[in-house]
Each structure stands twice: as C-alpha cells, then as structure tokens.
C-alpha cells in the first residue's frame, strides 16, 4: 500500500514537471512585438480601472531566459508593483519587486521602490491593533454577557451546592436520595445536552424561556451539583469533635452547622471551588449554542463575517483576563478565610 501511494505520487510529480516545462517554453516563444501589445492592453485596462485584469496581462510577460534581454520583464514587474502598491497590497508589491531584484540585484528603480514599500508597509501588529479596535466593541458586549452569566452562576451555585450537600448528609433518607440523584444526573450528562434540553426541549412541555434564563438555570444547576459534592467533602473533613463540642454547649444540629462547621469549610473550599469557577468562565462558551450572544458567540460571528483570526485571538485574551482576575480574587479570599490558622 505504501509502495503504491509512493508510486502514484512519483507519477503525479513527473506529470506536473512536464506540464510546467511545456508551458514555460511556449511563453518564451512570444516575440517582442507581442509584449508591446500586452503593455498597451494593460495600460488601457489600467486607465479603465480594471486593475486586476491589467495585472493578469502583465503577469504573462515571462522571466527572461539566461542571456536574454529583460527590459520588458523589468518594466512589467515594476508596473505590477505600482498597481499592487496603489491597491494597498504591499505584500504582493514586495513579491514582484523581489522577482526583479533576484535577476538584477543592481536595478536602481527596483531598489528604490523596495525602500518605499518597506517604508509604507504597516507592521503586522499595527494591523492587529487596527482590527482589534474595530472588533472590540462587539466583543466587549459579549464579554459583559459572559461576565453576567458567570456572576449569576457564582451566586446561585454555592447556595444550591450547600443545600445539595446538606441534603446528601442528612439522616432523612428520601432527601439524601433526591440529592444523590441530582448529583448523579447533572454530573453524569454533558452540560451542552442539559442546556439543549432546557432551551429546546422544555418548550415541547409548554415551558418556554429566554436564552439568558435557560443559560442561568442550566449553568446554575450543573455547578450546584459539582459544588454540592465539593461542599459535602469539606463538611465531612471537619474534625468530628467540632460538632460534638458545639452540641455539648447546647447547639442544635442546624446551629452547629451554621455557626461552627460551615464557616470552617470556607478555607478548604476555596481551592476546589476556585477551580470550578475558572472552568465555569470557559463553560459559559457553551451557551452560545442556545442563541445567547456572549463572548464566544460574538467572536465567532466576527470570525465568520471577516474571516479574521484577530477576533478569536482577542476573545482568548479576554477569557484569559477574566480567569486571571478571578484567580487573584479567589487567592485573596482563601487567604482571608484561613487567617485564623496563622500563628
């Protein structure tokens, strides 16, 4: 098999080479008078404004063979360069100029032209900034939506998670089973599928809601389930003596949880919860699939309209900025939450 494909590619390359040589030998046979005609035609097209057609005509004037006179070649390429330059296509102007310089390194016209192109040519980062400025407004709008989603979920999910955790460790079996089921279901199915179900599935049961509501509900429940398990672990990691000491001074289970146990989980919770929230910032991108115009969707729209990678790069930078800011905030909170452990 490998041998066969090698053979095929050999044949293909040989055929290509053959084609190229015949084509180039044909054009070499053109005479000087033909070129004058070509120049004239190109000039007409240029003055009528059809620059691309002019470029095509000029392109037909071939590279001179060794020892052959090349004035027409140089003239055609320099004219192409000027047309490209006028079209703001500095890269292409550069290529044709370099074609000339490759054969005639001392050609002063080409050398001067090269210098003026280089002076004119905008560096890549300038292009980036130009695009960035034009993309930023709609990206920022999207980012604001993403931030809003993140903040809503950050408010909902710790509360939901706490209830799920307390339900899980409750001695009341039905409650504990329900909470187990919630965790099992929402951790065990893709968030994307849950979002689809809420936004596209529930309407068939007569429940419709705007995308934002669907997104907040989906993210809220999903993250509550994840945080529920984390919070349960943190509660159960607190020394059993704490509960006993709280009960011994007469606290009820509820008071002991609220005053003694749960406050001690904060420090332990911050690293894993911070992790979840960083994941959340990125997971919000999934709601772009249910007609929410947030950061990912905005970037995608720009990319599809202008086919410009800058939109995606900018979106990545904004996501990074968000995750960095939240990482710092979480570290600060973790330090504060554990201050009583410092000696």
């Amino acid at each position, binding site marked *: 098999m490998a041998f066969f494909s090698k053979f095929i590619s050999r044949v293909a390359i040989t055929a290509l080479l053959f084609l190229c040589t015949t084509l180039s030998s044909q054009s070499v046979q053109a005479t000087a008078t033909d070129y004058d005609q070509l120049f004239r035609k190109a000039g007409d097209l240029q003055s009528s404004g059809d620059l691309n057609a002019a470029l095509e005509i000029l392109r037909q004037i071939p590279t001179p063979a060794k020892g052959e006179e090349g004035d027409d070649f140089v003239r055609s390429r320099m004219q192409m360069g000027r047309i490209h330059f006028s079209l703001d296509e500095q890269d292409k102007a550069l290529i044709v100029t370099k074609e000339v310089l490759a054969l005639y390194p001392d050609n002063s016209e080409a050398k001067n032209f090269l210098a003026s192109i280089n002076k004119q040519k905008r560096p890549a980062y300038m292009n980036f900034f130009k695009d960035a400025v034009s993309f930023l407004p709609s990206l920022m709008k999207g980012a604001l939506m993403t931030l809003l989603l993140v903040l809503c979920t950050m408010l909902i999910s710790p509360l939901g998670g706490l209830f799920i955790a307390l339900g899980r460790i409750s001695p009341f079996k039905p409650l504990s089973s329900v909470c187990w089921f919630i965790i099992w279901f929402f951790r065990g199915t893709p968030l994307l599928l849950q979002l689809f179900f809420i936004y596209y599935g529930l309407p068939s049961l007569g429940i419709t809601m705007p995308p934002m509501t669907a997104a907040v509900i989906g993210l809220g429940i999903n993250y509550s389930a994840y945080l529920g398990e984390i919070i349960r672990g943190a509660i159960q990691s607190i020394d059993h003596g704490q509960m*006993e*000491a709280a009960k011994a001074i007469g606290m009820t289970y509820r008071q002991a949880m609220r005053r*003694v146990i749960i406050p001690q989980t904060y420090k332990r919770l911050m690293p894993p919860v911070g992790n979840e929230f960083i994941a959340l910032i990125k997971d919000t991108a999934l709601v772009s699939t249910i007609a929410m115009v947030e950061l990912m969707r905005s970037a995608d729209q720009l990319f599809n309209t202008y086919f410009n990678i800058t939109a995606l790069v900018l979106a990545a930078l904004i996501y990074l900025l968000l995750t960095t800011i939240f990482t710092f905030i979480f570290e600060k909170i973790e330090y504060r939450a554990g201050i009583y452990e410092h000696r």
Partner: protein
Amino acid sequence: MNTDNQYLLSLKGITKHFKSLTAVNGVNLDVSSGEKLVIIGPSGSGKSTLLRAINFLEVIDDGHIIFEGKEAGYIRKNGRLHLDKPQVISALRSEIGMVFQHFHLFPHMTVLENVMEGPLTVQKKSREEALEIALAMLAKVGLIDKKGVYPATLSGGQKQRVAIARAIAMKPKLMLFDEPTSALDPELVGEVFETIRSLAVDGMTMIIVTHHMGFARELADRVMFMESGNFLAEGTPQEFFAEGMNNERIRTFLNRIL
C-alpha cells in the same frame, strides 16, 4: 418511673452496646449537688462512653437518666429507647457542660467569641450580656489577656482553660471532664487542674475522668473504679486508695499508672 429529688443526677441501669461489644453495662450512679466525683479505670473500660451518655452524645440502649429529679432525654416506645426531640436534648445539654481531652475549641473564632458563642447562639442572650459573661469567665480561668487571639496561637493548657470557660459560660449545673489533661505536656497539667479546683471551690458539681491519682485524692468526694463497663469499686479517696490495694485488679491498675 418513680424518682426522688435528692440527687442532681441519677443513672439507673445505663447500658450501651457497640455492635457486639458492651461498652457500658448497667451502670447505676447517684450524684448529689456539689459533689465531686472522679472516675478512674483502664483504657476501654467505658469511662468516656458513660460521660458522653450523660450528655446525650451517645444514645443509650437501656437505662434511665434522671436529671434534677426528672427522667430526661428519652422516649420509650415498644420497650425501646428513642432520643427526645432535638430542642429538648439541646436544652438538657446546655445545663450540662463538657470538657474534652482534645479541647475542640472553635478555631475560626477568637478566644472571646468561643466563650460568647453559647450564651449568644444557644441562650439567645444580647451581645452585651454575652460579652459580660464571657469576660467574667475568661477572668476566672485567667486568660483575659488572650481574649482577642485565635486558638491556634494558644498553648495546650491555655486551650483547655478556654474550653472550660466556654463550658461554664452556659452556667451549667453539672460539669463533665473527660481526661482534661491527657493531651497536655506535663508542665501544662497544673494550670488546668488549678482552674478545675477553683470551680470546685465555687461548689460546682463535677464528674472527672482522669489518670492523675494525686488530683483525684485531693479533689474527689468519691472515687469510682470502672472496668468492663461497670463500677468495680467506689469510696472516698482515703477508703479507695487504702482498700483498693486489697483488690487484685485495682492494685494492678494503680501500680501501673502511679
């Protein structure tokens, strides 16, 4: 159940099983108001389980706990004991203070907040009242200058004194101490005993589990020797240490720890 009022606490036939193991086996005990009782005995004999049962931290399988003349903490259904409603249990516990071997201070609260917590949360006292009580209790255990710090910065002895302050802030009628000095370096034991002694002087009723015979001898009105879930011998310290030497088991125990 017929009860008499002369004792603060009466235990009748207290029994507690852990699966096939009987940790407490039909214990009877009467404690008068103001009495200081010391329980000694080998490891695993059920001392902690008994103390925890008195504070309803262990749910007993059989027996009666009579506190201030009233049967307390359990409802009997079909011959089986069920712990009473949480509010009833909490109310009982707030009248019985307990001090643990490992202190169990609340690490996220300052010393002052630890002591204020009971009056504030359980007794629903005002902040000012709770503060006043807490400061008085901290003064009593000699740690008023530590009121603003977190437990992590305290020595073991100081932690245990704060734990005692936290317990007595509830103005309990009975104090239970489960090996209050066992987790301490020897040089820190004295300050904790000093604190307990000062409570005794105030007339607090207390049951103390300890391995320190000197302390038992000095403080106790009565010494109980526990083994295999029940009391094997009891008496005033003088009687106990004199007659205990005639009992093979007690002699072995005392010789080992003295």
